[in-house]
């Protein structure tokens, strides 16, 4: 089983499920723990949903390149899209003092990724948004 899985994900939700299924088959082959598989699923779902919502102004279907890499005690998940420049790390975290009546329904996904992954880095590289998320396998 390869240490790297490359996926090209179209920006619509039917393809999202198919890609997550392929990723899960790869996680299983790498014998990753239930906790790591959960976190990786969350990163894939939240980041791809975020790209669908914010990266493109048109209604066309775009490709997002996703690369999963199992290396040196960590799982690296890399996303590349050619949408408009958008650094999700600049989004403000949810207000901790909100109440149920006043809280906004959105904006949580990236917050969850930042809190639960070990590192999240954003770069604009050659006209593409590149997001690299690392999950340590240490406590697996």
């Amino acid at each position, binding site marked *: 089983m390869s240490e790297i899985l490359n996926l090209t994900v179209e920006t619509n939700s039917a393809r*999202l499920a198919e890609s997550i299924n392929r990723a899960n088959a790869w996680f299983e082959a790498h014998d990753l723990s239930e906790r790591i598989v*959960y976190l990786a699923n969350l990163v894939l*779902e939240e980041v791809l949903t975020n790209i669908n919502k914010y990266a493109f102004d048109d209604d066309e279907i775009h490709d997002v390149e996703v690369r999963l890499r199992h290396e040196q005690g960590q799982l690296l998940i890399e996303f590349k899209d050619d949408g408009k420049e958008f650094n999700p790390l600049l989004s403000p975290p949810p207000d*901790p003092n909100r109440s149920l009546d006043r809280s906004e329904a959105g904006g949580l996904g990236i917050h969850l990724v930042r809190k639960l992954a070990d590192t999240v880095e954003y770069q604009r590289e050659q006209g593409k948004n590149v997001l690299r998320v690392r999950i340590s396998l240490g406590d697996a």
Partner: protein
Amino acid sequence: MDITLNKSGQLAIVLVGGRMDTLSAPEFEKKMQEWIGQGETRFVVDFHNLDYISSAGLRSLMVVAKDARARGGELVCCALKGVVKQVFDVSGFSALLPVYGSMDDATKGG
């Protein structure tokens, strides 16, 4: 995902199982709105069979909790486990919604 309703007096006990994600959260919301439409407002959602929840699942829970509250009711959660519990904690949902360790505690407190 699996969603089952059981009545216990005035309480609507909702057992959820499997995954509550972008694809399945609308199904959860639709079912819950149906039950609210039938007059249910006091919900205890039992998470002990739920394997996965993402922000889409949390958003649906919030929509339903607000609807129940607007009708004078409440939605409480119980039996969260593993990363599902951690997602509730880091998202702040553990402070936004009443969360109990077990069904027994939830039905006494709710």
